[in-house]
């Protein structure tokens, strides 16, 4: 059997496992309209996905991921609740010289269920853990929902919270904003000069002085942001305790059960995270009920925060040896269903396995 055929056979074997767990098979197009993916991920995805031009359909992308088309299919005509399984290629540009495959099979499982999200999280994780049990992988979990709840609970302006939430998946910029809002980083010189000008003169006058009005961005929009900048400069920094808790949360790495104890400990100082911490606790209970040892399960509060993701709750990945991409990964993406659902939304969680990595670890590919 050729390597490719062996990988497909392994994928089919895993696919059958997902079906046995109650999933309905689902297919997705390989050529997807680029617009949807670009609107979700921004230009960054062009560095990862293959883009091509169709004379009639416009810009198209080779499927970089199953989640978006599966969510779209579900939101258009899915049952409620629903479980889906799929098997097919995804296509991703890889860094030069990385040796990573740019075309590979994924086999996945997605759960759309309103009743008990934490139970669904545990179901997906435990199912994949069980299917890969013979590979001695190292699982890592996280929960972006706790970080988002902490941001929403900050005692600061809505504008600052919105700026932080917008960049939750871009750790560097998130950190930069947090440093500034916490008063730990000075304002850039250009911003200081700008604020001085705005305080000395009205925005309308500055716009008039700038001459030659061009572009779609209106004087009202420019004025509104100028005023927002002045207002933000007058906003006091985050309270030292709150800021310290947020920094603590960004770097929290501990076994899940210990992480829960730690989070319970800081909840009185940041009460807004209480519901998210309760969900975390419920998930650990559900995981334990599936036989997962939460006393040793790795938890990292910042796990899954990369710019090409959409997870907003539980996240997980299963790792093999150093240098190999995760053999499996997944998470919860409730907000994505809202973005793609045109008004509707449903709690959703899922995960994918890369069959060829599983085979490689068994020494068979």
């Amino acid at each position, binding site marked *: 059997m050729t390597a490719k055929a062996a990988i497909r056979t392994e994928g089919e074997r895993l696919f059958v496992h997902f079906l046995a767990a109650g999933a309905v098979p689902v297919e997705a197009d390989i050529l997807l309209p680029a617009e949807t993916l*670009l*609107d979700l991920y921004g230009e960054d995805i062009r560095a990862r996905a293959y883009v091509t031009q169709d004379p009639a359909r416009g810009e198209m992308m080779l499927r970089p991921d199953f989640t978006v088309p599966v969510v779209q299919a579900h939101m258009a005509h899915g049952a409620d609740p629903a479980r889906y399984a799929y098997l097919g290629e995804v296509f991703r540009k890889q860094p030069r010289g990385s040796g990573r495959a740019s075309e590979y099979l994924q086999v996945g499982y997605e759960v759309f269920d309103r009743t008990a999200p934490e139970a669904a999280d545990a179901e997906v994780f435990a199912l994949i853990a069980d299917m890969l049990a013979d590979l001695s992988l190292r699982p890592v979990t996280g929960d972006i929902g706790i970080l988002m709840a902490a941001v929403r609970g900050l005692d600061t302006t809505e504008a600052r919270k919105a700026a932080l939430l917008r960049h939750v998946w871009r750790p560097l910029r998130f950190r930069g904003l947090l440093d500034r809002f916490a008063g730990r980083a000075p304002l850039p010189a*250009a911003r200081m000069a700008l604020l001085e000008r705005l305080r000395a003169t009205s925005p309308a006058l500055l716009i008039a002085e700038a*001459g030659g009005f061009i*572009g779609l961005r209106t004087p009202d929009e420019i004025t509104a*942001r100028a005023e927002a900048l002045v207002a933000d400069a007058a906003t006091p920094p985050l309270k030292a305790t709150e800021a310290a808790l947020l920094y603590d949360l960004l770097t929290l790495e501990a076994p899940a059960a210990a992480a829960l104890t730690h989070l319970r400990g800081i909840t009185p100082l940041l009460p807004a995270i209480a519901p998210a911490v309760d969900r975390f606790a419920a998930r650990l209970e559900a995981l334990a009920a599936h036989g997962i040892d939460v006393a040793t399960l790795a938890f990292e509060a910042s796990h899954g925060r990369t710019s090409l993701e959409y997870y907003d709750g539980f996240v997980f990945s299963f790792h093999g040896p150093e240098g190999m991409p995760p053999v499996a990964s997944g998470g919860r993406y409730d907000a994505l269903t809202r973005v793609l659902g045109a008004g509707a939304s449903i709690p959703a969680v899922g995960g994918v396995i890369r069959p060829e990595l599983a085979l490689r670890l068994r020494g068979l590919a």
Partner: protein
Amino acid sequence: MIRIGVPSKGRLMQDTFDWFGARGVVMRRSGADREYSGVIEGLSGAVPVLLSAGEIPRDLAAGRIHLGVTGSDLVHEELGPGAPEVAELARLGFGQADLILAVPNVWIDVETVDDLDAAAAAFRTSHGHRLRIATKYHRLVRDFLQAQGVADYTLIDSLGATEGTVKNGTAEAIADITSSGETLRANHLRVLTDGLIHSSEAVLWASHTAEWSDADRAAMARLAVMLGVKGLA
């Protein structure tokens, strides 16, 4: 025979000829003025190949030429930074130009990339589409903005007259090569204070993928001495 890719027209061609000439490697076009071939005097085993500056990166990467002179902007855009197919032998001290990010001068609230990011978020909310940046340097601009975590923008392809796109309503901002600020000012645009994406300069590149025969290597060793550049690794 070492094939040296040389820009086929304009200032860049003349500066390249002058740079080589000043080091005793006299290049000139052969035959009629319209013909894209050349000869080298004073050195055997090498021949200039006149090419569009924009094609030289790909010809280097494909090994169709052994050496080539073109801007660092074009090589980084076409091949990416740190491309293994090419090695930088020397910066030539001409063809300097900066790839910059510029916004309308009337955007009095936007001075930095950070401001642009915040303005893009608000723009997308009020206009229903991402803030458009016109450029022909997609990779360089995207890498620059991605490294800083800028979101809610889209790159619009512009192959010429990029400075006019904002006025014409097809973009909100631009990223373009500028050797002076005059064209920008005339088009009511202003460079962001931290908007320098790439400082470009003409560079002599060597191709690692080209076939280097023993004779080519010997000729290259002689050439490297004459030019005062490092030889092949």
